């Protein structure tokens, strides 16, 4: 379904309003499905977008219960600003980066980032490093692979990582550097090939969340946090292409 995403929940269900980074899109759908059947059911009302945008909105009092960012710094800064208790910041996953090319591309994606050095690849899409954690990670990874100088002039920037994925998926960019979670999504999986970028070649994408101070139903929000960091949640996140915090 649309961004709202949550399956219809029985009346009286607890509702949690979630602001989630774009790379969580598919994983959270499944989380929501599971939670909706839990007892008592929890209904997730999820909005996806760029972590930076959510930070702005929450700083100005946006009525969310839980913020799942693509990094740890935004949640931490929210806590520092008094928008959440410092204890309520939690890490829930580690983002993984892939090089993604559409089907039919002549690029040998198995060579990873070095394949991008070839000008024949054309435009390379990444998230905007200025405010998207995945963009920053992609730039760092390309630098450590020593290809950044040769790719820089061909970079195109998506507003968030999902948009970067779309640039390549629509065939307008020759390749993209995106979140594994997106590359694994059913809608993208059969439209292209991907190769993971080795984790050590870029600063760890520790993804953090936070239960916000103004939450209407703290119990429900905490249940979401518990679920994500618990056994069932971590299994789902793992399946959708995340490493687990501390792994």
């Amino acid at each position: 379904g649309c961004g709202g995403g949550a399956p219809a929940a029985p009346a009286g269900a607890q509702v949690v309003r979630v602001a989630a980074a774009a790379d969580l899109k598919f994983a959270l759908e499944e989380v929501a499905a599971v939670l909706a059947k839990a007892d008592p059911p929890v209904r997730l009302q999820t909005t996806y977008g760029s972590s930076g945008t959510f930070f702005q909105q929450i700083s100005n009092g946006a009525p969310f219960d839980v913020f799942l960012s693509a990094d740890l710094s935004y949640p931490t800064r929210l806590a520092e600003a008094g928008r959440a208790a410092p204890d309520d910041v939690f890490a829930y996953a580690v983002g993984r980066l892939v090089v993604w090319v559409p089907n039919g591309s002549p690029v040998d994606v198995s060579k990873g980032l070095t394949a991008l050095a070839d000008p024949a690849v054309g435009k390379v899409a990444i998230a905007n490093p200025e405010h998207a954690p995945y963009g920053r990670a992609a730039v760092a990874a390309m630098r450590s692979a020593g290809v950044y100088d040769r790719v820089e002039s061909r970079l195109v920037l998506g507003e968030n990582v999902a948009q970067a994925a779309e640039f390549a998926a629509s065939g307008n960019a020759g390749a993209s550097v995106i979140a594994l979670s997106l590359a694994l999504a059913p809608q993208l999986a059969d439209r292209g090939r991907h190769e993971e970028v080795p984790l050590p070649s870029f600063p760890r994408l520790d993804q953090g969340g936070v239960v916000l101070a103004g939450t209407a139903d703290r119990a429900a929000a905490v249940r979401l946090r518990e679920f994500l960091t618990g056994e069932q949640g971590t299994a789902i996140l793992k399946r959708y292409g995340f490493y687990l915090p501390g792994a």
Partner: protein
Amino acid sequence: MDWQAIGVSVRLAGLTTLILLPLAVPVAAWLALSRRRIAVLLEAVVALPLVLPPTVLGFYVLTALGTASPLGRWWQQTTGATLAFTFSGLLVASVLSSLPFAVQPLVAAFAGLDRRLLEASAVLGRTRAGTLLRVALPLSKAGLATAAVLTFAHTVGEFGVVLMVGGNIPGATRTVSIAIYDSVQAFDYATAARTSAAMLVFSLLVLTTLYSLRRGRRTRWPRP
């Protein structure tokens, strides 16, 4: 398909239009018909919301409405709720960002009026307000319709401001434009296409009706 979002959009666009038009008419009349030189400058000022990127406009509105600003705090103390991320907040932002769409066509229409008719009205003892209501406005129906259409349509399509100020809350601030964007972001092209199509059909109906209404007495090419 997100019917709720469509509902929010229609409500938002309708209310924005209803609020803006009565506001825009006197403003446009002053801008168009005033003899003061400053009118030119003010006309440009009114057009400014057009130039600011909607997200930036949204950001500034957000800041102004937020709890950090005096206005936001005052609102919160008075009503007990924040203005941002509510339908009312969205309405405020929409009114602001659609202002030029309501004012500009009216300015053009008023500026094109036959001055003899304004003079005739003055001779017959009417004030400017009376003349505006009884002569200028009825003779500017095409401009009024354009203003209404542009305001309504622009609000329905508005994205950046709503994104920043609305916070994408279903039933309150998730408009259809946001909903479609979300579908696209989720690679759910089918839903995006379906929602877009529904909106297009609806808009087409509204616009066609509006345009038909104003068509009565219009100037046409001489036959054939």
